[in-house]
Structure formats: structure tokens, C-alpha cells
């Protein structure tokens, strides 16, 4: 079994502290490249910015397996300069406006500090407390004398990685956890497959990078590795929580159905049976909306058998998420064990 130890934690720290809002993923691409270029058989950046890394196995009848983890994170773009250092902005990716006011941000590649400002309590009438402040009424304030901050720059939450015992608090765990897992899988690549790792771009804007990556790689089978929300709290009235999506500590979340993909039933069976056989805990993500790169991959070309596995995380798409190190480790191990056991016969089973 693979372990999450100091080097893996340091790498996740580096990955989550870096900023890579959708469409500008260079910072993550650079980190990943350094990690894997010595072990890769092939490595290239495609036209959209996806980093495609091939690690070939040995022996005959190797399946070509595409594993996708997106490098981008949700964030903002400055859209209008109102006065010196004071900008209107738009969200890039799904964002709840109630989560924004008062949050510190980093603007641009140089990580210029700023804050998402709103009117202070002194000047807000009591009737307004109960209403949401729309994004159009919020501003990013970087202070005076920042000529390098311009309209079109991206911004993200200024949150630094923190280990909290058995948990981690950081921004962009969606999907730097996936990126970290994919790097680890490349470093421990099973020899029975050709591993086609796709570190994708623009997932948060509609699974755009994965679409061209899948077309180019044309794999036999694919998995998206992501992080999915856990809403596993007690319900306010004491009734049973029946809408938790996933639960923290219950292991990797295997997808059956989300808003973009009906996972290939053969892949659901393969992952579940691996978990049962190797005694790696897993859970099924509640069928529902949302989507991963699998949504683009499975309908690429003449169709690709595809599934998704996610590390559960609380508070996704906000300033900071929270996950359990054990869930991360179990996700890595479930994937590693499943891939190591994978035989081309899976594609002969009835779908």
C-alpha cells in the first residue's frame, strides 16, 4: 500500500498554494512537469494547455488508460477598473456569492494581495442583513500603486495550506488532490498498462480541456480523478441527512451517475470489487448533478468506457476546503490497486 507522508504532503502544499484559475494553469503545469519529467516516456503540452504525460508499461496486451485530473481552480477575473486599485470582477467557475464578501485574494500571477470588499455594518441598514450581496455589488480592492494589476487578470482566494492533524485545510483541493494522486500514480505506474496522464485545463468552465485531451489520447478506458463535496453534517432539525453527496472519512467516492456521465457499469464493478478484495474503504457518491472530466471524455470519438473517483472534501468552491488525509491515501490506493489488477477482459464483459 502506498502512503501519504511528508513528501506527498509537501507536494500538495505546493500545489494548493499555487494559483491556477481556469485558463491560466501555467503555475501548476510547471510544478507537475518538474515532478514527472524524469519518469515520463513522453510529455507534452497541447494547444489548450493540457499537460499530457505517457508512462508505458511492459508486456503484451496493455490497455491504454487515460487518467484525468484538472489543474485549474475556480476564481475571478477583473472585468472593469473603477478607480485606482478598485475593480469589478466576474466569477470563473461555479461560485456562491454569499461566500465572497470579506475574503482576502491574490490577484494575478504575482499574487498581489487584495480583498473582496463590501459595505461595513455601520452603513448597512438592518433590513439588508438577510439579503445576498450580488457579485455585481462586490469589488476587489488591491490598494494604491499597483500598476501591474490590470483588467483581465485572474484572482483567487488567498488561502495557505494548513495541516490540521488528520485533516488538511487549503484552497483548490478541487482538484489539486487529483493532481497529487495522478503524479503519485505516475511515479508508481503499474507495468500492465500504458498510463496516459492528462493534467487538464478549464474543467471548471465546462470540462473543456478534457474534451481535446481525450480526442488526442484516444484511450481504451478512462477515469477522472477529482474531489467532490461532502455535506455530511447533522440536519438542523435532527432529522436524517439524506443529501450529503459523500461523507468525510468513508473513503474514495465512486461515481455511478452525475449530471454529465452515467459511469460505465463495468468500471463501477471493477473499482468496487477492488475495494472489497483489498479491504480499501470506498463509498458511492450520491447520484445527482455536477460533473467531472468524465463528462467530456466518455463521449469523445466513438465512445470511451469512463468512470470517476473523487476524494471527498468539505466546503468545495469556497475560500478553503477541508479533507481527510486518510481519504486521499485510500483514493490513491484504490486506484493503484485497481489499475495493477486491470486486464483487457474488462472490455469483453457485458456493459
Amino acid at each position, binding site marked *: 500500500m502506498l502512503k501519504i507522508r511528508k513528501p506527498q504532503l509537501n507536494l500538495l502544499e505546493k500545489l494548493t498554494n499555487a494559483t491556477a484559475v481556469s485558463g491560466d494553469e501555467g503555475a501548476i503545469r510547471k510544478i507537475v512537469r518538474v515532478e514527472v519529467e524524469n519518469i515520463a516516456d513522453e510529455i507534452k503540452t497541447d494547444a489548450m494547455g493540457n499537460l499530457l504525460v505517457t508512462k508505458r508499461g511492459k508486456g503484451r496486451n496493455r490497455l491504454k488508460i487515460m487518467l484525468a485530473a484538472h489543474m485549474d481552480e475556480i476564481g475571478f477575473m477583473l472585468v472593469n477598473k473603477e478607480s485606482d486599485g478598485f475593480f469589478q470582477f466576474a466569477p470563473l467557475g461555479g461560485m456562491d456569492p454569499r461566500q465572497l464578501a470579506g475574503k482576502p485574494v491574490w490577484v494575478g500571477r504575482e499574487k498581489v494581495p487584495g480583498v473582496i470588499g463590501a459595505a461595513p455594518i455601520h452603513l448597512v441598514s438592518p433590513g439588508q442583513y438577510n439579503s445576498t450581496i450580488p457579485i455585481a455589488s462586490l469589488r476587489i480592492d488591491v490598494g494604491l500603486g499597483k500598476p501591474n494589476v490590470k483588467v483581465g487578470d485572474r484572482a483567487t482566494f488567498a488561502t495557505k495550506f494548513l495541516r490540521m492533524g488528520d485533516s488538511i485545510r487549503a484552497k483548490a483541493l478541487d482538484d489539486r488532490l487529483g493532481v497529487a494522486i495522478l503524479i503519485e500514480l505516475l511515479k508508481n505506474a503499474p507495468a500492465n498498462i500504458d498510463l496516459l496522464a492528462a493534467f487538464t485545463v478549464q474543467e471548471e468552465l465546462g470540462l473543456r480541456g478534457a474534451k481535446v485531451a481525450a480526442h488526442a489520447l484516444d484511450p481504451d478506458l478512462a477515469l477522472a480523478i477529482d474531489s467532490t463535496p461532502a455535506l455530511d453534517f447533522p440536519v438542523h432539525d435532527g432529522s*436524517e441527512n*439524506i*443529501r450529503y453527496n459523500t461523507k468525510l472519512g468513508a473513503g474514495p467516492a465512486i461515481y*455511478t*451517475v452525475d449530471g454529465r456521465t*452515467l*459511469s460505465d*457499469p463495468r468500471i*463501477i464493478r471493477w473499482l468496487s470489487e477492488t475495494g472489497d478484495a483489498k479491504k480499501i474503504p470506498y463509498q*458511492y457518491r*450520491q*447520484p*445527482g448533478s455536477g460533473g467531472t472530466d468524465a463528462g467530456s471524455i*466518455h*463521449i*469523445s*470519438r*466513438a*465512445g*470511451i*468506457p469512463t468512470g470517476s473517483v473523487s476524494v471527498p472534501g468539505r466546503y468545495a468552491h469556497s475560500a478553503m476546503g477541508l479533507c481527510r488525509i486518510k481519504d486521499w491515501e485510500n483514493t490513491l490506493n484504490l486506484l493503484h490497486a485497481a489499475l495493477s489488477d486491470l486486464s483487457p477482459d474488462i472490455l469483453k464483459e*457485458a*456493459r
Partner: protein
Amino acid sequence: MKPLIKKLTETFSPSGYENAIREVITDEIKDFADEIRVDALGNLIARKGSGGKKIMIAAHMDEIGLIVNHVDEKGFARFSPLGTFLPHTLVGARVRFLNGAYGVVGAEYLKKETQTKLAPLDKMFIDTGATSPKDSPVKIGDVAALERPFHDLGKRLIAKSMDNRVSVAVLIETMRKLKTTAHEVYFVFTTQEEVQVRGAITSAFGIAPEIGIAIDICPVGDTPDSAKKEVSLGKGVSIKIKDPLMIADPRIVTWMIKAAEKANIPYQREVSTLGSTDARAIQVAGAGAMVGGISIPCRYVHSPSEMVDYDDVQNTVKLLITLLEKKIEL
């Protein structure tokens, strides 16, 4: 064709889980195809003939279904839809799971104060007879379809999943009756149509046809207080001109109408304001195709009991054979 329609509509295969229906269809068509294959998304692709035009005739074989997203402390299975349901058609419906379990759909809001309110799907549940997650025959990810027997009213037929098994029957019957064709015809029984026509996306890419025709049901405007629509049950094959996500190629529309008129097949002109079909995916797959659609008028679409007219069904077979037999000039 009635026994075939009965057999097809009494098979359970929701979107993404088309194994059972694929086996039934394969058995029906194996003697009438030159080549049969199944693609990565489970589409069943049967070729008949060669030369002439490369034509893809698609009928989706999936049906709308339910997937369990939680079994609560008392054993009630909460669910998400596979495809689109109108909530008011579901309460009291019986469902059969692919693993054999059986249940009835119940709903919250049945208290006196709220009983006039329509329960949304997330306030409904499936009662499988279980009393806890422990003795529940189902778990997260288990899939069910509606259960309702086929019923023959003579001219009119009622069944669950008439959408789109009636078109599947039309394709099978066409394959049987089509003695010769001047074309390379791919009869494609597609998957996952009810969840954004996904099977047609990949099968059309794999085949790369010049002409694509989707056979599907279409809602009608002939029941009390229904939405206004020209198409009625029993008044003929419905030739699609437009739906919200696809404009049929005018050359295909003209070809179909001329053929119908020449063969004295009653037809109706269809402009749909609701729903779409596999044709929308075929049209834009790869480098694109000329597409059209032929619809079988259907009442109570996406309810547990969908009704079609048997004359319309037989006329659809006639039109398809007329179209495929001869040389095509567009």
C-alpha cells in the same frame, strides 16, 4: 408486430443499463443483418447492404428510469431520475430494479395541510418493503424502471417505455421486411438518449454516415387541454421539420414527404416545441451529416403508460422501407 412490441416494452433497460434490451434486440435481428457490433457506450450497430449512400437509422433503446441515491433509516429508498419525469405521473407507480427488487413510489406532502401540493422528485421515495438499510434489497446506485404491462386496445396500444421501444420494433420489422437495399444502412439501437442523446454522439462518430434519420416518438396535441400541436394520434407518420435542438435538412424533409405521397402513406408535418432526438447528435458528429426524423405520435409521453396508434406504427415501417429500397436523389 404486437407481440414484438409487448416483448420490447416489458423489458427493463434504463439509460446506461441497456444490457437486457440489447440482448432481446440482438436475438431478433441476428438473421437479418450483414454485420453486428456493440460500441464502447453499448450502442448496438447492425449493418445491412453496401454501396449507395451510407445511412444511419437510429432508434434509442434506453428508457427513463430511477437510481437510488440513499436508503434512509426506515428503509425508504430515495432516488434521482435517469431522464426526465413529470412528478405527478410517479406517485403510486410500481418499479422493478435490475437486481430483481420491486417497489412502489410514495411521496411526502400527504398530510392534510400539504396534500394539494405537488411533491417534487426529491420528496418522493421508493418503498421496497424494507424497514432499514440492513434489510433493504437495494443500495446507492441501484437502478429501476417503471413496471406496467403492455395492453392492446385494438387500434391503440398502451405500455411503459413505448418511448422508444415502439421505434425499436419499427427498426426490427424494417430489417426483416427490407429484402434488398441499394445502400449501406446502419440500423443503430442507441443508448443514453434520455440523458442528452449521448449514445448517438459516439455511434454517429464511429459510423460517419452521409444521412442520419432518428426514429422516435413525439408528443401530440390531441388530448383535452394539451399544448397546441398539429400532430395527432392515428393521423399518420410524423415527418420532423424542426425541434428545439435540431433543424431537419430540407432535402431530407422533401425526400420523405415525396416518398410518403407517392406510396400513399398518411403523414403529418411535425414542428416540435418540446424535446429532441438522436438526430441532433448525428447532425453535428464528425464532419456532419444530413439528418431528419420520423416520429410516431404518442400520448402521455414519459408517464408509466404511453399510448400509440398501431396504424401509425405500421405506416412508419412502410415509409422506412420505401425510403431505403430505392436509389436516393437529394
